[in-house]
């Protein structure tokens, strides 16, 4: 009953979405506000409708309806209720419903706002969002139906939505259960974060397309969607970081990022999104790069769709691993169609997207922003190349060739270094015109201090050249950014006669985007410290220890104490937990408990014993043990220097984006660039 009901509701929402597209287009062509309002109302209906379908799915998941194929695949009786709920996005069919639900929520939120003078955008925003929804709902209804049930067709068990002839409903005793690796809290919230980021980027794209179609190609669409882009970027970034943290805590290979195609698929829209966030500022302030912004938002949208597809279908590893999914070609067709259509719109409106001024100086703020964009795009090209290279080489040479993490590290390293250098220079450059002299005057103190720090590090910490270059750049960016905070606050302190800290907080409050951006830059540098530490200084060792024996790594000594195994029948898992004593030099500093969980289903899970400090992480994995005597065990041990800075940086990053995106006033009330240039009222640069 519930399954048919849920499916029925999905079918209804599919039809409503199709209707809203037609109503919107008809309304525009007939210039009928009533039809556009009808499209708007049907759009508002989407969220409650898909919510009901989602509720039906959750009901089935929570109540062990194992006649439903999706429920059978992702849950089992032993799973706690909250995991049964989150199993919603634990499989492909459910996660497509989840995607649609989020998009419906965001689209409703957008359509419900006061449109006033932007009303001409409305029908086209509806068309773009609805078309995307139609695509995802179509996939769910026709190909990946989470409500399909098992039927016993003459001895064969087959999943179908409706009863085939002569079939009886088949209910499995218990489900297969969510992969234990996915039962980690990080994994419970990582996909929703990523999806929130993915889906929110649809909104800026929809407004961009609306701007192109209506011909209102000024920066209005950018102002309207500025916060959407920021939130999208925040969630996407959090999704990436949480995924990394999950890998570090659960996967037991001592790292957080492996340049896996699926990771890259989520990273690529982040790159274009980051470039977009930067370059829209140039359009707002200087009226430049309009074509470029359109192309970036289109790329981001299509990379989001592409990423959703890659993260779910596994098509890339399919060369050697997974079965092909029937929805692959459909995704590719949709990405190609939307991309070609959007680019065609850009070409059609090309003349009206002309720049309002010219870029005069190579060192002006806008030129450096352009360079920043080019570098982000270069990283994107490197990633894209790495992903498609195996397919290309097979196509052209017949030989299957692939590139691994060393390719990405080697090719992106210099690009990231250049980006960091820009982060140190660009905040000091002026709009319109800068010269080597003006930049040098603004920078020399920070550059000198960074050099001194690097020299000190050379004598006290490391002689690794690449690491030293990295530390120099990090120090430079941090110092320049702090200097910017200080300079602004001091200036305000003088003119407003305020205490330094009052001046600083007011300054930041008045220029949220600018100082939020600087906080984000600082957080990126903290993260860079962690990444550099792992890339340059990670060490590992492994060995088998008898009870009481020890192993040395860096200045740590790890002594094997004991190991014990027990079953947890309720969770259907066997735990094996070792105790090792940790010494730093000769000083006892504590115990660690690396664990190996073996689920009865056969899925193992290695939980490292971690001792985390700002200087380094000691990361001990229990690899093997002798089950009867428990007198010896094999360990793999990593020392991961500075990795904690990565997580601290992520937290600060969160603060920075919230600070920049926090609503202070309705963006519609902000004066546009043209009026502001006349009135000179804004304190923002």
């Amino acid at each position: 009953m519930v399954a048919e009901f849920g499916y029925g509701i999905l079918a209804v929402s599919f039809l409503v979405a199709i209707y809203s597209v037609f109503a919107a287009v008809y309304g525009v062509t007939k210039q009928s506000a009533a039809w556009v309002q009808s499209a708007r109302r049907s759009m508002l209906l989407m969220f409650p409708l898909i919510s009901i379908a989602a509720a039906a799915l959750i009901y089935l998941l929570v109540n062990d309806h194992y006649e439903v194929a999706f429920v059978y695949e992702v849950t089992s009786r032993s799973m706690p209720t909250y995991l049964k709920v989150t199993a919603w996005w634990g499989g492909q069919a459910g996660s497509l419903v989840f995607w649609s639900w989020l998009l419906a929520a965001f689209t409703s939120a957008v359509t419900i706002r006061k449109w006033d003078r932007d009303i001409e955008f409305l029908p086209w925003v509806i068309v773009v969002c609805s078309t995307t929804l139609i695509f995802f709902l179509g996939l769910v209804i026709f190909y990946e139906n989470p409500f399909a049930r098992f039927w016993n067709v003459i001895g064969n068990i087959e999943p179908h939505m409706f009863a085939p002839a002569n079939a009886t409903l088949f209910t499995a005793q218990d489900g297969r259960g969510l992969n234990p690796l996915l039962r980690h809290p990080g994994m419970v919230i990582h996909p929703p974060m990523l999806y929130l980021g993915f889906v929110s980027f649809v909104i800026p794209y929809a407004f961009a397309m609306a701007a192109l179609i209506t011909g209102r190609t000024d920066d209005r669409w950018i102002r309207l969607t500025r916060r959407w882009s920021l939130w999208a970027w925040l969630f996407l970034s959090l999704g990436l970081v949480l995924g990394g943290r999950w890998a570090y805590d659960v996967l037991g290979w001592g790292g957080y990022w492996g340049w896996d195609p699926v990771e890259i698929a989520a990273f690529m829209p982040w790159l274009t999104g980051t470039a977009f966030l930067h370059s829209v500022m140039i359009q707002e302030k200087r009226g430049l790069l309009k074509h470029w912004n359109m192309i970036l938002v289109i790329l981001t949208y299509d990379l989001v769709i592409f990423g959703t597809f890659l993260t779910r279908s596994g098509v890339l590893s399919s060369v050697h691993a997974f079965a092909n999914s029937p929805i692959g070609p459909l995704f590719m067709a949709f990405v190609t169609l939307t991309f070609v259509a959007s680019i065609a719109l850009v070409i059609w409106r090309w003349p009206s997207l002309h720049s309002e001024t010219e870029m005069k100086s190579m060192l002006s703020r806008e030129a450096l922003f352009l360079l920043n964009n080019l570098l982000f795009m270069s990283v994107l090209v490197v990633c894209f190349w790495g992903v498609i290279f195996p397919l290309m080489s097979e196509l052209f040479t017949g030989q299957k060739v692939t590139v691994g993490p060393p390719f990405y590290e080697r090719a992106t390293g210099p690009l990231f270094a250049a980006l960091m250098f820009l982060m140190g220079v660009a905040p000091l450059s002026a709009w319109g015109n800068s010269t080597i002299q003006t930049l040098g005057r603004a920078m020399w103190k920070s550059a000198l201090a960074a050099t001194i720090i690097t020299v000190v590090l050379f004598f006290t910490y490391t002689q690794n050249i690449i690491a030293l270059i990295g530390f120099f750049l990090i120090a430079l960016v941090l110092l320049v950014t702090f200097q910017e905070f200080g300079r602004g606050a001091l200036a305000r302190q003088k003119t407003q006669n305020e205490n330094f800290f009052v001046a600083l907080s007011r300054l930041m409050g008045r220029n949220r985007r600018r100082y939020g951006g600087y906080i984000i830059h600082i957080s990126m540098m903290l993260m860079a410290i962690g990444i550099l530490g792992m890339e340059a200084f990670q060490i590992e060792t492994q060995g088998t220890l008898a009870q009481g024996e020890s192993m040395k790594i860096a200045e740590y000594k790890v002594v094997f104490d004991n190991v014990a195994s027990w079953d947890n029948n309720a969770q259907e898992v066997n735990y094996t937990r070792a105790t090792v004593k940790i010494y730093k030099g000769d000083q006892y500093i504590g115990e660690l408990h690396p664990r190996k969980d073996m689920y009865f289903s056969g899925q193992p899970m290695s939980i490292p014993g971690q001792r985390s400090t700002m200087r380094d992480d000691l990361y001990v994995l229990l690899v093997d043990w002798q089950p009867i005597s428990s007198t010896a065990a094999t360990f793999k041990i990593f020392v991961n220097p500075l990795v904690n800075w990565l997580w601290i940086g992520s937290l600060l990053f969160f603060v920075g984006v919230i600070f920049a995106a926090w609503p202070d006033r309705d963006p519609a009330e902000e004066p546009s660039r043209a009026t502001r240039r006349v009135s000179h009222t804004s304190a923002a640069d």
Partner: protein
Amino acid sequence: MQKTKFILGGLLILAAVAYLIVSSTQASKEYFMTVNEVKAEGAAAVGKSLRLSGAVVGDTIEYDASTLTLTFEVAHVTGDNDEIAAQGGLAAVLKQAAADTTRERVKVVYVGPKPDLLRNEAQAIMTGKIGADGVFQADELLLKCPTKYEQAVPEQAAAQ
């Protein structure tokens, strides 16, 4: 004048990125190969970075815990998805490959902890190089367990 400068700058970046991509590709490319392909290449495959895949033959697994040295043999499995589908899916193909003693096999040596998933009929994907002696020295060992590929349909036996 300014325009030329910008164009030159752009070209310079383009060239740098192209260089980075080409040189990094050259430096780190790995050849996907099946057991048969490695055997067919013979001496030509020695020293190349390879990504070898095959089915683990359970009887050949040996592990020396004191030196952490793991040796086993992998049997040929086709790399063609359509062929795999035609032969009844990956699980069936792996099962067949591990049981078939007439198939080409490659001996693999890996130093490190013994992975839990290493068992008969698992699919092994290894990166490393093959020596002149025909033994594959794996730096990295990735295993996929056949159970993961079971049809997402419950066994009839589970019925009441």
